């Protein structure tokens, strides 16, 4: 489908080459700095950590970082669609926990059934969010705060508060198999990100998503069904939560009703680090993916260096706030 014209889509591409300026000049331009915050920080971190500990960029460590980042990448992609419409999905990590528990409950009927059930569970949470927000006209913040609690409660009820061990050779393959340094889970996340990129920038739907986020009234005046778009982005977010649940179960070998709250914060942080505007209308997919890699690399590097556990949350917080500060200069 050819992209429909929208006043906001042109700003969504990070680096356009039609102005003729050299790339570095565009990078240091304050208005572009926000878009480049994550890649720049990632490079700086890599240099610093590599200087302090030569194992940081060893192939083995890069491989484990990429695997560790895959769940966060999947969630960040889902969160990006929601944030692009100026919404927020606070329930994304709980939806993942709920989907993981459903996976565990259905696993006795086979792996495929469990995967489908997990994805359906994620979609269901997303659909509830979307309908309440778009049709019920309740603020996204409140709705997803409610489903955050409800989904984790449902997870506890279904799992009866207990983790369930999942033993499955294909899942083990998913979490440990690699192509060179790229784990299957990471490759899956990258494929999802590519699909998301195409959907967001090369389909009518993607244009509508950005238009809805940029200016809801204008979008609906031009005939975009903003309610439908808003519902759809939460469904997408739920879908990614369901996929992330499968990766999570594969990774830890168990379906458990654990809170996984760090994923909620990190998914929002990755999106912000990626230069996506919390006011909507302006998004990239590559940005949040790099944001997710950055957050993972940061914790990995601090762990490798043996930095005291007390400093890790502090450093993550500083990085996130600095990135948010840079977004002030966005056009």
């Amino acid at each position, binding site marked *: 489908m050819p992209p429909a014209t929208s006043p906001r889509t042109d700003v969504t591409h990070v680096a356009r080459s039609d102005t003729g300026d050299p790339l570095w000049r565009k990078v240091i331009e304050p208005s572009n700095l926000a878009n480049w915050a994550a890649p720049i920080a990632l490079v700086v971190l890599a240099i610093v950590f590599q200087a302090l*500990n030569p*194992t940081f960029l*060893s192939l*083995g*460590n890069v491989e*484990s970082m990429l695997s*560790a980042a895959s*769940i966060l990448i999947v969630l960040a992609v889902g969160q990006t669609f929601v944030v692009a419409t100026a919404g927020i999905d*606070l329930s994304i990590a709980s939806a993942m926990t709920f989907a993981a528990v459903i996976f565990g409950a259905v696993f006795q009927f086979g792996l495929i059934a469990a995967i489908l059930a997990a994805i359906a569970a994620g979609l269901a949470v997303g659909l509830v969010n979307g309908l309440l927000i778009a049709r019920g006209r309740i603020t996204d*913040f*409140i709705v997803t*705060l*409610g489903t*955050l*609690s*409800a989904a*984790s*409660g449902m997870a*506890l009820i279904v799992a*009866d*508060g*207990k*983790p369930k*061990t999942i033993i499955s050779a294909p899942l083990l393959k998913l*979490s*440990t198999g690699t192509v060179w340094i790229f784990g299957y889970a990471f490759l899956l996340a990258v494929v999802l990100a590519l699909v998301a990129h195409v959907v967001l920038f090369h389909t009518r739907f993607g244009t509508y998503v950005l238009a809805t986020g940029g200016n809801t009234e204008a979008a609906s005046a031009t005939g975009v069904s903003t309610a439908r778009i808003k519902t759809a982005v939460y469904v997408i977010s739920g879908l990614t939560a369901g996929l992330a649940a499968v990766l*999570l179960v594969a*990774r*830890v*070998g*168990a379906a*458990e009703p*654990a*809170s*996984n*709250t*760090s994923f*909620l*914060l990190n998914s929002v942080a990755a999106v912000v680090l990626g230069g996506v505007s919390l006011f909507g209308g302006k998004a990239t997919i590559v940005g949040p993916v790099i944001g997710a890699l950055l957050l993972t690399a940061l*914790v*990995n590097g601090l*762990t*490798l*260096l*043996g930095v*005291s*556990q*007390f400093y*890790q*949350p502090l450093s993550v917080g500083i990085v996130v706030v600095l990135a948010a500060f840079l977004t002030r200069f966005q056009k």
Partner: protein
Amino acid sequence: MSPATHLTRHIGRAATVAMVGSLTVTLAACGGGSSSGGGAESGGVAAVVKGLDNPFFQTMESGIKDQASTADVPVTVQAANSITDTTGQGDKLNGLAGQDFKCFIVNPITGTNLIQGVASLSAKNVPIINIDSPIDEEAAKSANAKIATYIGTDNNDAGAKAAAQMGTLLPQGGKVALIGGTAGDVTSAARLDGFTSAKPANVTIISTVAADWERQQALTKATDIMTANPDLAGFFVANDDMGLGVAQAIANKGKTGQIRVISVDGNKDAFDAVKAGGIDAVVAQYPYVIGAMGVEACQAAIAGKTLPASVEAPVQVVTKANVDAALASAPKPAEAYDNPFTELNK
């Protein structure tokens, strides 16, 4: 006190959400609501425990109920809505305190959140058995509350037992890493401190990380630590769930059996992992026994016996050698343990 394990995990969740909006407390209270127990039978024993949203307290509750039915004592168990529901738990105790129970078993979420109810019960001379998490001594004194006895486990000792076991597993010594719960958590710190102070001299701790009581984080951080230290010999992990994550990380690297893992708690999954070889040893604490002992203490108190000021609940090391017995006798320990209440209730 292992429940604090779970306490902090959930506090972590609450704190996260609090960053987003303080409305959560209300919502969480609406979401989690499950108080368990029979009808309010007067004349018996009342128990107020922490949230039943995790296995540790579910096991504790079944210990209370089983012992009560064995002893034919009517029991009412109420639980907090969740592990962070400090005021709700206080309200539940206050509600029960107005009824005619002969003895109370309390497992407070914090050292002070039940102090008001405990004080009003003390004023009526109803015996109070404090299990698992201790009521703050200072607060009890200033509120004029009398605690008949305290039954719980020593997390420092659990850490020390793990250290001794690590010494057995690594006779030549070597580098070990410590995986704790949420940074700054009391239970996690006690277990890690116990390990650190009791470890053999030839075992060196090269890294201590926080994995927020989550299996996924433990897996990731254990992988990172192994990458940074190819000669690592072992992990001490502050609970079983994270221990399973570490075991998975080691298995992913194909080093099962080469890098030793010891965790604390005593969940069935961890015992299974000990049997399968993923985890080398589990320092097991027994919430079932803590709950059951609470009821026994109440029986003794109702009969007018003098109770010991504090009782250590059993802590036992489970390895491949005794894991079958541990699995068979779960949720009770396989080996004999001191129970002063058996004698008192004869």
